[in-house]
């Protein structure tokens, strides 16, 4: 084991930290939130820094980095609540494509994902909760030498910004993954803001006709690919959350030092000090769990891997809730206002519980283990 960042990781994290501080400042973030569309300048900035190519293999113009690099980079993104579709496109879908055997699709898309020219999202959830990823209503059938896809996907992260989707569907009663460009006939995207001020969409596929080459994988291979993508997503998301918690703790410390009541700074009240200490404890738990997730991504024992990733997601979500709620509480009435960025961090930390499987989903994964 070696906890030190490599020289490349160190350099990238540092330059990213500087850019995030500047370009994802409170004011700039809020401005961009007003727009319903992805800001192309910010997206290009992320591409130029190499963030989008991190998980893409070198033969497709990426950096082919391991999950450990996700840990370093996504903490920095989390500090600035970088809410562009990095995780769905450059982490989850990049991983699914990279690990697939469909060379044509890899050639077609991976280098564009790394350069930011292609934005992908994963359409795998449907209207009602279903913890079995292969229990789907969306269907794909073979017809006249083509594939025909029909179904409705819900809560697709950044659907409105996506150029293409990785879609899960049943094909001959087995799970299949397909790559579906967003602009083909029969697709309707209903894009909306989410509780954390980022965006999602519902995507309807109404008899969408695709070439056979759109089929990425089916059967057991499809389920494996899907989980590999989601698991890398969890690594990135846990790191993002840990970074956000770190920043939120910092602004709460600053507030307690500044705000005076009863003739002294709030920082001098023991009851508040202890809550702050509890937040710090939870931040350390979350950061450690982000490391557990990254270690889990490289774990060969599948049961152990599952335990590490699901445990990480659960504990990070719990820590995020505690730190988010506590930060609001310690800011008092000011924490309830839209005027401060405390609320933005709180909302993101809450939303993270719901992304990529909520706590109950992951408890169910753990329940299935020995």
């Amino acid at each position: 084991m070696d906890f030190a960042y490599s020289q490349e990781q160190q350099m990238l994290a540092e330059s990213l930290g500087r850019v995030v501080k500047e370009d994802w400042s409170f004011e700039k973030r809020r401005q961009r939130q007003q727009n319903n569309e992805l800001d192309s300048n910010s997206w290009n900035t992320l591409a130029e820094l190499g963030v989008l190519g991190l998980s893409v293999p070198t033969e497709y113009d990426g950096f082919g980095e391991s999950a450990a690099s996700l840990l370093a980079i996504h903490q920095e993104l989390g500090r600035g609540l970088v809410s562009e579709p990095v995780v769905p496109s450059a982490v989850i879908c990049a991983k699914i494509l990279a690990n697939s055997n469909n060379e044509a699709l890899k050639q077609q898309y991976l280098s564009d994902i790394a350069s930011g020219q292609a934005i992908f999202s994963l359409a795998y959830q449907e209207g009602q909760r279903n913890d079995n990823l292969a229990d789907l209503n969306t269907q794909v059938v073979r017809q006249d030498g083509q594939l025909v896809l029909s179904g409705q996907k819900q809560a697709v992260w950044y659907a409105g910004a996506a150029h293409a989707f990785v879609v899960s569907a049943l094909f001959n009663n087995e799970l299949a993954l397909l790559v579906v460009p967003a602009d083909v006939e029969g697709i309707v995207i209903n894009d909306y803001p989410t509780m954390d001020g980022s965006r999602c969409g519902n995507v309807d596929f109404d008899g969408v006709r695709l070439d056979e080459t759109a089929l990425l994988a089916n059967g057991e291979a499809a389920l494996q690919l899907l989980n590999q993508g989601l698991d890398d997503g969890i690594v990135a998301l846990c790191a993002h959350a840990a970074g956000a918690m770190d920043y939120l703790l910092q602004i709460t410390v600053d507030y307690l030092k500044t705000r005076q009541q009863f003739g002294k700074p709030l920082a001098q009240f023991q009851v508040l000090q202890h809550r702050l200490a509890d937040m710090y404890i939870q931040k350390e738990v979350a950061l450690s769990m982000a490391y557990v997730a990254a270690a889990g991504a490289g774990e060969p024992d599948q049961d152990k891997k599952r335990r590490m990733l699901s445990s990480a997601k659960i504990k990070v979500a719990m820590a995020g809730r505690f730190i988010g709620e506590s930060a609001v509480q310690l800011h008092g009435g000011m924490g309830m206002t839209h005027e401060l960025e405390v609320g933005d961090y709180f909302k993101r930390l809450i939303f993270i519980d719901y992304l990529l499987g909520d706590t109950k989903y992951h408890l169910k994964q753990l329940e299935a283990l020995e």
Partner: protein
Amino acid sequence: MDLNLTQEDIAFREEVRQFVANALPQDIKDKVFKHQRLDNNDYIRWHRALDDHGWGAPSWPVEFGGTGWNALQKLIFEIESFKGGAPRLLPFGLSMIGPVLMKYASPEMQQRFLPRMLRIEDWWCQGYSEPGSGSDLASLKTRAEKTPEGYVVNGQKTWTTLGQYADWMFCLVRTDPDAKPQRGISMLLIDMRQPGVTVRPIKTLDGGHDVNEVWLEDVKVPYENLVGNENEGWTYAKYLLGHERTGIAGIGLCYRELQILKNLAAEVQWNGKPANQDVRMKDQISLIEADILSLEMMLLRVAADSTQGPGPQASVLKIRGSEIQQDLARLQLEVMGLNSWPYSPSWLEAGEDVFGPGHPFAAAASANYFDMRKTTIYGGTTEVQKSIIAKQILDV
């Protein structure tokens, strides 16, 4: 001791149920159950419907036009009206300044203001907190200077709930800057519809506008608008806060939100079954219902003990009530699952079709969860309440 409802109590409960079912306008009920935003007229319509029935002041004694109900009847009324989808009663007149005036104001002042509270002929708001004085309320800086014509008030108040509709503010001001902080405070009734009063909205986490900042610049207040005696405002303020804390437990709201939670859990599908069949969810619903039962009995016990003023138990009620309200909002969000992701504040405005892929409650769940964080902050934070409890039980 008889811990069960009598036949009369049960009959009264039925009477309240029937009344709410008949008298509450359907559009208000719909908004309440969907957590849509209510406007001032929604509140006024409900208050007037109650007053038409002689129930305009459920918590007041008969001599002031109230119902004269006992503690249990008040509780039954609160629970049943909330369960039936009624909005909360505006607390500013009925449970905040009203009781203060009954206890401390001159008969003239009582006569002038109290009867108008039953039909919300005056909309009241609270002028307590200031930007620099939250938990440390006694440090407030708004000052009232004496002139031959009356007081002239200057300062800034904040977190003024529904102040955008207010006709009158009960306001804590400093009348003696040289006295100890608690000693130099007076309570004034300020006409909000006059020059020098500026109300500005504060947008909150849920995107809503319930609270305001209020600027008071050379605002003229006649001497007759002083409540009780000059420099004794802190006594009145504390009396009011004690009332606020028992009311703030929100038992009616807890029961209504529990009902909403149960409705959602019965309807939303998890793995092909209603969410209330999921053992993880089911346990959480059972536990929160147990919490509510304890809160209800605690309220009754405290109310039965009329010998005590607002003591540590008032703070216990405030803490427990606010935590339960927060837990209920969190569970509603959880049970909604994917359906709770979409959110835009405008979806909760009246007249908008509630947007929610899959569910009309979608937009409300996250907004309500975020908004409920205020309950452990307002009316004395949980930290302040715990200090009150500790001081009293330690006798320090």
